[in-house]
């Protein structure tokens, strides 16, 4: 088969099994767009801003487990995508981003719409390529997918100069079945001896904790995690990125940990004697003050990326490998081991944990005459049967979604944790909806965040992605306002959202349904009504209590055992 560079790009995507590409055209990619036009196997979703393309591809990837693909032009198209690429990088999401580049002879001459995309993205990609020769194109695309999806996943950029896609130059095409890179051999199975050591250590525990994260979602190991946890009967906490990988409604689940985690999860971490970290990276939002992090614990850490291990916290038993096979061996070795977990010690430990739990740290005022954002999320959970895909933006609403939508399945909770990118929620939701056309998709957002990628409402109309936008409108950059209240003497510097648009009219002008809800009693009927509109995008503007804060909280510089609880709640530090 003889193909041009542009046709090779499309044919390679087909051969890679790619069904959807999120993109935006421009000069440097016109040849590729022309090749796209002449086929039907790869469907192109036209976003309205290249940041949206990267986020939509990201949401697609997170919800489906398949790599997301974005296509952007050179220069401004490429730079617009960078925020989305960095977002995927920090959360280890497999993306392949194809950017156009000026023709090879003029590279470096400040040509029209030229930027050094490989240089700009170098610090926020897993790897990137500049394809200088059409003969390298097919193999490079194969390599890009291989690198993006294996080991610790991440975004890969392929920068393609326009002359490389010249429709006038046809060459024989062959897409490699597999590629090997002598410089890249991701670890997969984990060392059996280390796993055995870990099992022995787990069985000596009197106050154990399981701390699992995004790696379990990325590694499709929820089932193994659930089996191991139940086998051991240990308490388990999830990071923000791990939510849903263990069913939140299970008794062994003590909630999220970290800055806005539960009191019981953070106290459990602080008092535990053996900690097993599974696909989690000891982020500073999780550890609080490092010096007082898990002071009594021996630590086991399973991670596919050796660089994640002992990066911020030293560990005693490192296991480099994919969570799934490692947990399988762990379960097998537990079965063979004659020692069993120390039930008496565990009973005592659970008593303590339930004592911490009993303060009910996520309680909030349910009798208020203002809409409490927490209640919107709880009602959203009810109305969707706890089974929706929920994307979010960044801020207080993100934390409330994480705390109150009790996720029971992996890949349902889709948010930007590492980079914390406002503007992520809506395009990500569109990507989720494209990947899961029959699913309920909610985008929990705030009135500040939603304005950062609001243009994607047009994409939602064009492709009929029936996203329900849950705008928790508190008229503030609430998360910023909260910090200013706690740490800056209530000086609300530039965090008030003046001049907000009329979101209903705005939604309607984009061809969608708009709803404003300002009374607590209207929350449920409105959500019922919105989700009954199965094929419509509905923008729900919830006018919520503007003074509500996210609790509990580990404030900056504090340890995990020094949580600030909601006003009026007291701690229960001592043993039950």
């Amino acid at each position, binding site marked *: 088969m003889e193909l041009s560079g542009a046709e090779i790009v499309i044919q390679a995507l087909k051969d890679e099994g790619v069904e959807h590409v999120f993109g935006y055209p421009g000069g440097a990619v016109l040849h590729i767009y022309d090749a796209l036009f002449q086929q039907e196997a790869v469907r192109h979703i036209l976003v309205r801003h290249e940041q949206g393309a990267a986020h939509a591809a990201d949401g697609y990837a997170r919800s489906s487990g398949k790599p997301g693909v974005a296509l952007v032009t050179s220069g401004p198209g490429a730079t617009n995508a960078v925020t989305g690429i960095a977002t995927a990088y920090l959360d280890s999401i497999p993306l392949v981003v194809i950017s156009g580049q000026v023709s090879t002879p003029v590279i470096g001459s400040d040509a029209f719409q030229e930027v050094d995309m490989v*240089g700009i993205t*170098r610090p926020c990609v897993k790897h990137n390529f500049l394809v200088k020769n059409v003969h390298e194109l097919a193999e490079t695309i194969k390599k890009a997918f291989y690198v993006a999806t294996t080991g610790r996943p991440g975004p890969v950029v392929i920068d393609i100069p326009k002359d490389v896609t010249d429709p006038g130059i046809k060459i024989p095409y062959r897409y490699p079945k597999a590629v090997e890179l002598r410089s*890249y051999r991701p670890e997969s199975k984990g060392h059996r001896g280390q796993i055995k050591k870990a099992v022995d250590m787990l069985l000596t525990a009197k106050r154990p904790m399981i701390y699992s994260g995004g790696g379990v979602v990325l590694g499709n190991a929820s089932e193994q995690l659930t089996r191991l946890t139940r086998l051991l009967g240990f308490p388990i906490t999830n990071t923000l990125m791990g939510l849903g990988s263990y069913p939140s409604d299970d008794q062994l689940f003590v909630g999220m940990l970290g800055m806005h985690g539960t009191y019981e999860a953070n106290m459990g971490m602080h008092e535990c004697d053996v900690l097993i970290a599974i696909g989690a990276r000891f982020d500073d939002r999780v550890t609080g003050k490092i010096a007082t992090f898990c002071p009594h614990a021996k630590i086991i850490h399973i991670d596919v990326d*050796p*660089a994640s291990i*002992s990066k911020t916290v030293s560990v005693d038993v490192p296991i480099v490998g994919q969570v799934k096979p490692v947990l399988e061996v762990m379960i097998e070795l537990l079965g063979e081991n004659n020692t069993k977990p120390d039930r008496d010690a565990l009973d005592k430990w659970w008593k303590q944990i339930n004592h911490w739990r009993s303060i009910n740290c996520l309680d909030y005022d349910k009798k208020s005459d203002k809409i409490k954002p927490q209640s919107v999320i709880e009602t959203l959970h009810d109305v969707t049967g706890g089974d929706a895909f929920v994307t979010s933006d960044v801020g207080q609403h993100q934390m409330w979604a994480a705390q109150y939508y009790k996720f029971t399945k992996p890949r349902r909770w889709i948010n930007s944790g590492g980079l914390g990118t406002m503007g992520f929620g809506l395009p990500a939701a569109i990507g989720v909806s494209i990947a899961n056309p029959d699913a309920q998709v909610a985008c929990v957002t705030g009135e500040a965040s939603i304005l950062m990628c609001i243009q994607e409402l047009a994409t939602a109309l064009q492709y009929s992605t029936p996203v329900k936008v849950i705008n928790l409108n508190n008229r503030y950059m609430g998360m910023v306002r909260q910090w200013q209240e706690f740490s800056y003497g209530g000086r609300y510097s530039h965090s008030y959202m003046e001049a907000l648009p009329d979101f209903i009219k705005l939604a309607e002008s984009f061809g969608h349904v708009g709803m404003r809800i300002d009374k607590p009693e209207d929350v449920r009927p409105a959500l019922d009504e919105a989700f009954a509109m199965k094929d419509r995008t509905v923008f729900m503007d919830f006018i919520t209590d503007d003074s509500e804060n996210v609790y509990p909280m580990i404030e900056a510089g504090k340890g995990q055992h020094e949580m600030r609880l909601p006003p009026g709640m007291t701690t229960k530090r001592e043993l039950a």
Partner: protein
Amino acid sequence: MRHIISLLMENEAGALSRVAGLFSARNFNIESLTVAPTHDPTLSRMTIVTRGNDRVIEQITKQLNKLIDVVKLVDLTDSSFLERELMLVKIQAIGEARDEIMRLADIFRSEILDVSPTTLVVEVTGASKKLDAFLAALKKDSVLEVVRSGATGVARGDKALSI
């Protein structure tokens, strides 16, 4: 502690900037860096001199290994190794000072590469410490130019960094 990390990487455009970028992005210290192709033209060998405690050095080696272009890596300072750096020094040399410098060059087993009526260019080779010592022995204001290659090194014995 000072460490010398030696690595093989794909001899490709951009590989060097990935390594240099990593050091600046992650706030790692870099004292010197040298790179050139090896007898296998598809591979370059890089030598990096850096400083840090064990924790930092562990991160540096892990992060370097993580770069897709890096094929293999060794911390030479983990075992017995040879270190060589080359230095060219242009020195003001008039009158008595001229003899003094030539004597010094002799002691350091270095070579005089160029002679002008007022200057000398001396080549010194050795471990970086020896080069430092040579410079320290010179009168400060007589030094006109110092050109150092950065350290290179190789492990002693039959161990080889190869693929």
